[in-house]
């Protein structure tokens, strides 16, 4: 039987199963094959904070969504075309996101009475009409895997564990993914357990062959490679890109990197990644707590290192006092906040943009801090370098606001030319700057208002800094009212004067009356929504903020250029509050705080409503 091959321009697949089913790994491997094949792609892992929630329950469901296409795409996709459901809980938890007509590949072996009961199904949805809107492929994934592995000397339990590779094989057949990579990966991953490697490869191939031979799948699909700008690409997640950006910042600033960090979801992967790169002279310090993490980074910065601390919202709250110390001692410091749903512990594995006002104002006293926010997973690389540039040049702590969506999501990244990376190095001060050969640690550069950075070991420049207010110039303790007023204003002016690029507006015809503005990780969904509007003939302009403090100089002028300004945020209107206060513009907010990124379709609807309203 020759099977039909259908051409598609894009596909969204969601792998869903129990936390222990290996869905993240399955998604990762499918992504690697897809990247290798040359599609553009974007991914969205979604998993519970619990490492192993009770098996088969709704809270235990872990999923991985992948959007791939023959053209450039901006988001992991709104609604899956295919759902792989490894058990009833995975089906139930994800069914609401499935559009009519989507494919469901369900692992029938797990649709037992007990598992159905666990999630409140009275009868199996596979056996009644409840799934008639969708195309259901009932596949006994577990027993087929066990059967495929019966020649291996494996317990049934161990054999069952390979069912995710069987599913991966089946999906790889269904979408014509290359297989060599996955086989090589499994050989490497289980290099020390060749039997397990062979079993997983056998399960993977059995899944492929099942697709090829069974009548349950009569059609397979092809998605041609995308025509992306020429260059060398790799797939990269936000956390990995951010870690690489920090390494590049260390190289480009000629400063040794010191990371002080405390494990926290979803930021820990940056600590993990940087700890693997000691060849770059990087010191990673897993501190006793969040406060010690930032304290050690600041101490290292005092000694001439590129001091970095990485955390999420609860950690930023704990670090606030030390960040204030960095503000007043005017030392370079990078504070990475991978935002997650709050308040308090909130939902650690879910994304949010709710730390903006904390980043800007969450300290005692007048304590200005520059804020940079990356707009896509790969942009975390450039944003990290930009944060370091500002920190080093202006001797200031800088907040880098990533989030869970960027951190764990991934996309193809066109590698930059190393020669094109900016030189962000600054010289340490080595000579006295006072009239009589004295050293004035708070005598500033006339342009940048930055103070000299003289590190211990520099003869003749011995000086003391601290959290108490300092006299302008000498840095000695000062309680003088006029001096305090001057220092407060000077620190503010320094940050306000940081050189940030102007905002650019994307308005192809130049006659849009509605502007959509966003910041951080919402870039992808907003841009995808804007494309939809334009495709259907609508006119809308888009701009996106990477610098939240200071704002680009032309921000106010741009906002005032449009009749209406729409600002979608995954918070209750934090940037809107600022823009309204700063520019007296009646910004229209659109806010959702569901722990998930916006969907393009959702935003397109919102934009259309704004265009249509008077």
């Amino acid at each position, binding site marked *: 039987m020759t099977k039909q091959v259908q051409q598609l321009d894009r596909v969204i697949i969601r792998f869903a199963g129990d936390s222990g089913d290996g869905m993240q790994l399955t998604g990762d491997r499918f992504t*690697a094959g897809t*990247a290798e094949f*040359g599609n553009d792609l974007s991914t969205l892992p979604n998993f519970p904070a619990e490492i192993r929630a009770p098996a088969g329950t709704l809270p235990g469901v872990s999923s991985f969504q992948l959007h791939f296409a023959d053209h450039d795409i901006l988001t992991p996709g709104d609604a899956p075309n295919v759902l792989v459901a490894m058990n009833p809980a995975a089906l139930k938890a994800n069914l609401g996101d499935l559009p009519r007509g989507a494919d469901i590949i369900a692992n029938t072996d797990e649709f037992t009475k007990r598992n159905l009961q666990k999630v409140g199904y009275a009868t199996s949805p596979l056996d009644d009409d409840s799934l008639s809107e969708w195309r259901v492929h009932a596949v006994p994934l577990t027993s087929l895997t066990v059967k495929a592995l019966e020649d291996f000397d494996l317990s049934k339990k161990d054999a069952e564990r390979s069912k995710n590779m069987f599913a991966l094989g089946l999906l790889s057949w269904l979408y014509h993914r290359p297989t060599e990579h996955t086989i090589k990966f499994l050989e490497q991953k289980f290099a020390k357990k060749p039997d397990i490697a062979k079993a997983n490869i056998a399960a993977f191939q059995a899944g492929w062959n099942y697709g090829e031979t069974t009548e349950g799948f009569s059609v397979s699909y092809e998605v041609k490679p995308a025509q*992306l*700008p*020429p260059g*060398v*690409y*790799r*797939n990269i997640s936000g956390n990995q890109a951010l870690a*690489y950006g920090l*390494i*590049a910042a260390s190289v480009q600033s000629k400063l*040794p990197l*010191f990371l*002080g960090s405390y494990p926290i979801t979803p930021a820990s992967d940056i600590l993990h990644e940087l700890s693997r*790169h*000691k*060849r*770059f*002279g*990087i*010191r990673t*310090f897993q*501190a*006793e*707590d969040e*406060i*010690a993490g930032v*304290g*050690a*980074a600041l*101490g*290292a*910065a*005092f*000694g*001439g*290192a590129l001091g970095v601390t990485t955390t999420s919202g609860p950690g930023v709250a704990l670090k606030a*006092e*030390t960040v204030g*110390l960095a503000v007043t*001692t005017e030392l370079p410091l990078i504070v990475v906040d991978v935002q997650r749903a709050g308040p308090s512990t909130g939902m650690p594995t879910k994304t949010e943009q709710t730390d903006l006002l904390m980043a800007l104002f969450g300290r005692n006293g007048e304590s200005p801090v520059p804020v940079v926010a990356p707009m896509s997973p790969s942009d975390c690389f450039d944003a990290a370098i930009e944060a370091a540039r500002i920190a080093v040049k202006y001797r200031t702590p800088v907040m880098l606001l990533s989030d869970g969506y960027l951190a764990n999501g991934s996309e193809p990244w066109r*590698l930059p030319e*190393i020669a094109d*990376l900016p030189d962000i190095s600054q010289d340490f001060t080595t000579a006295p700057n006072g009239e009589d050969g004295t050293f004035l640690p708070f005598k500033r550069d006339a342009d940048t208002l930055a103070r000299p950075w003289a590190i*211990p*070991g*520099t*003869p*003749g420049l*011995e*000086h*003391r*800094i*601290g*959290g*108490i207010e300092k006299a302008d110039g000498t840095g*000695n*303790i000062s309680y003088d009212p006029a001096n305090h007023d001057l220092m407060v204003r000077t620190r503010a002016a320094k940050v306000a004067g940081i050189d940030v690029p102007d905002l650019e507006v994307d308005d192809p015809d130049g006659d849009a009356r509605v502007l959509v503005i966003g910041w951080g990780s919402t870039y992808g969904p907003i841009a995808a929504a804007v494309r939809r509007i334009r495709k259907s003939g609508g006119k809308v302009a888009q701009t996106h903020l990477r610098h939240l403090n200071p704002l680009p100089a032309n921000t106010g002028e741009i906002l005032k250029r449009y009749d209406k300004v729409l600002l979608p945020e995954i918070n209750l209107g934090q940037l809107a509050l600022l823009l309204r206060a700063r520019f007296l513009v009646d910004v229209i907010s659109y806010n959702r705080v569901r722990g998930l990124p916006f969907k393009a379709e959702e935003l397109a609807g919102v934009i259309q409503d704004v265009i249509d309203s008077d």
Partner: protein
Amino acid sequence: MTELLNGKGLSLVPKTDVKQTLKDFKSDQEVRWCPGCGDYAILAAVQSFLPELGLRRENIVFVSGIGCSSRFPYYLNTYGFHSIHGRAPAIATGLAASRPDLSVWVITGDGDALSIGGNHLIHALRRNVNLNILLFNNRIYGLTKGQYSPTSEVGKITKSTPMGSLDKPFNPISLALGAEASFVARTIDSDRKHLQSVLREATAHRGASLVEIYQNCNIFNDNAFEQLKDPEVRDDITVRLEHGQPIASASKAVVRAANGGIEVVARDSVSDDQILVHDAHNPDPSVAFALSRLDEPAFEHVPIGIFRQIDRPAYDTLMAEQLDEAVGSAGPGGLSELLLGGDTWRIG
């Protein structure tokens, strides 16, 4: 005295040929402690001790937290960082871990080190970060004007405890020993000779050294350590610890107790060979810990000197070794190689 360790503590810090004096270490800032404060004596002792080390002044850094004692760095003409409450050990850890060429000192008090900063102190000690930590213990909060501290005795009447404090105090020496400290000592603000002898050993020790300094706050907790200073009684109360020497004074001696611990007995009730010989280098900290408890409950016998001094790699050394090993096995890192390190593909 410490043949094993002597001199190692400063081996990576550049020396100067220029002869230094106390004056070289005085900053131009006016000292602003209360007249009669014990901190003056400690400052003078440190300033007059530093020239002895012969270090380049620019390679010395004093880091402090918050409290009266934490103003210390402003008065020394070295690099200094007056930070925030309790966090000096954390800040100094980052500095010392990345700069083996510096002599880094932490100046802290009982509230700063043992209350708000307790966590950082114990972790700096267990990591053996190359720091000299001077803990000024006056058993009171001075800068906030007289609340009880984590070393105040139970029942202390203060502004915040009008009916007496309820909290069992920390014994800083016991705490440090429990935190795996490699160097633990106690001295007194008023005994400059002893203070400087302890500093000498502390600076010779590579790794974390914790020196508790009994310090008088003459405003809010005057005469807290008077028994140790009063010529009438001090020799009877003080138990001097010197490595390799019997732990005994003219009137009393420390011996093994029948219950397996140690006890203080009248000197003339035991023979010389029954007296415990102090072994600060003993890898087993149990005797040092027992010694640290001798002042319980009534401040009757107070050990002074070095309780423990063992050789253990400093944190910065271990960190640097990992960097060297990484470079040694695969060469220095290169950005291009890093970025191309994953699965890549070419378009166009």
